[in-house]
């Protein structure tokens, strides 16, 4: 009887589902952390292109400063809209200690091996939100980030990379938005009978160029008086 069951047990033990269940997916986050552990700071020129029906705006340019682990500053001479989520590359956003990870699937992404992970904020995590990451496991790159739907909001970021000073950093981030609209207070105007869309949908494409990596950005840069900013 035992002998008869053995093949089934072995089959079960070596099945992809079982291996998937046994594997600790946080090691993918670990690999990402290690890969970018040498990235102390960068500054980069950004060009934001909006393809959103509810927001008619020309391309906007600015210079973005980042310093590990989570300092960010945007410098622009003009009015500048920048997506709050997924707008810039911050490798320490997905630290192993901040999330509980679950492997959702293995897949091939643009011809390379990849995994899809669901990240749930750990108890000590200041982040309120969970994510689904698609990670290119051959190059240890986050290729897609999706926010877990909350309050009817869905944001998906698709990231393309280039190599700058030995680091693979984004050359573009394409954000796909599907978020509910919020009607501004006290801004009713005469003469507008247009049907108000219920959601903001569309794409925001952020292109990055002229990276300067690990140039030793001072903390003071991030404390200097900034142009008015609404958070």
């Amino acid at each position: 009887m035992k002998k008869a069951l053995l093949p089934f047990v072995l089959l079960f033990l070596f099945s992809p589902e079982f291996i998937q269940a046994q594997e600790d997916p946080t090691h993918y986050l670990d690999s990402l952390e290690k890969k970018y552990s040498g990235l102390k700071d960068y500054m980069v020129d950004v060009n934001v292109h909006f393809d959103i029906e509810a927001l008619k705006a020309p391309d906007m340019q600015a210079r973005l400063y980042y310093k590990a682990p989570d300092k960010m500053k945007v410098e622009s001479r003009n009015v500048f809209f920048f997506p709050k989520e997924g707008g810039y590359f911050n490798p320490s956003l997905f630290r192993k200690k901040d999330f509980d990870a679950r492997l959702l699937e293995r897949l091939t992404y643009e011809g390379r091996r990849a995994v899809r992970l669901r990240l749930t904020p750990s108890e000590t995590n200041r982040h309120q939100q969970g994510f689904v990451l698609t990670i290119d496991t051959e190059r240890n790159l986050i290729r897609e980030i999706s926010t877990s739907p909350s309050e009817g909001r869905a944001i998906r970021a698709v990231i393309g990379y280039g190599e700058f000073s030995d680091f693979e950093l984004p050359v573009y981030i394409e954000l796909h938005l599907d978020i509910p609209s919020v009607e501004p207070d006290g801004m009713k105007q005469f003469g507008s009978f247009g049907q108000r869309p219920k959601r903001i949908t569309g794409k925001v494409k952020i292109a990055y160029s002229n990276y300067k990596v690990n140039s030793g950005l001072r903390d003071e840069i991030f404390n200097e008086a900034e142009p008015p900013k609404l958070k």
Partner: protein
Amino acid sequence: MKLLWLEVFKTFSRWRTYIAFGFIALIVILTEIVMKLSADEIMLRMMRSLQKDFLIFGNLLNGWFVTAFIMNSLHIHIPFLITLVAGDIVSSEATSGTVRLLLIRPPSRSKIITAKYLTSLFYTTAIVLFLAFMCIFLGLALFGSGDLIMNYATQFRIVFIPEAEIPVRMLLAFAAATWSMTVVASMAFLFSTLAENSIGPIIGTMAVVVVFFLVGNFPFDFFRALSPYLFTTYMIFWQRFLDDPIPWQEIARSAIILGLHNIGLFLIAFVAYNRKDIKS
């Protein structure tokens, strides 16, 4: 031409003509000071729809935004200020008893009524230009310059206009606003031609403007069906110059419809004045 300048001189010799300018100055100064003091609150309310998902940098509450914000009140107080003069310009001659004296002078009735009408339009233009001057120069002095963010709240649309394009667009917007207001002037002028006192034309014109605005903006299908037939529907076409892309066809259509109103109202006034019995 001489007759026109005499009418202009006569109009601008009256103190009541300057009520409008004083009122506009007061409103603009008060509004801009209050906006300056509550800048954060205004911006938070204005950008509430975007700030949950976007970081917003730069000087949004600038002189151009303040100007566009105040221009939205054109519908309410500027028509009233226009009627103060346009509703009085013909009827005051009857009230003060100078109409007979005026009409026995060599200039024909047609010339007199045309000169008075052109004076009403001149005054209307002066009012709107004064508003533009006050809004823009005080706004830029207090709030500085920058890109213009137009929030079409009821349509849930935000339009971004680069700073370099704004002066030309504002010029066109104020020209369109002036054109809109000439219809109010024409209506007040017609009522003034028909009446023997000034109160009737002023109240009558305001009643028409307010009722048309309300009817045209009630969110019911019945009233929506009526709105294309109300001239007030087209009076906000100046806003289209602050849109992206600029809907030129819609602008041309509105301008033509308002122009036809002007012509129609003036022709009725012209005929009525020429037929007016001043002997009784």
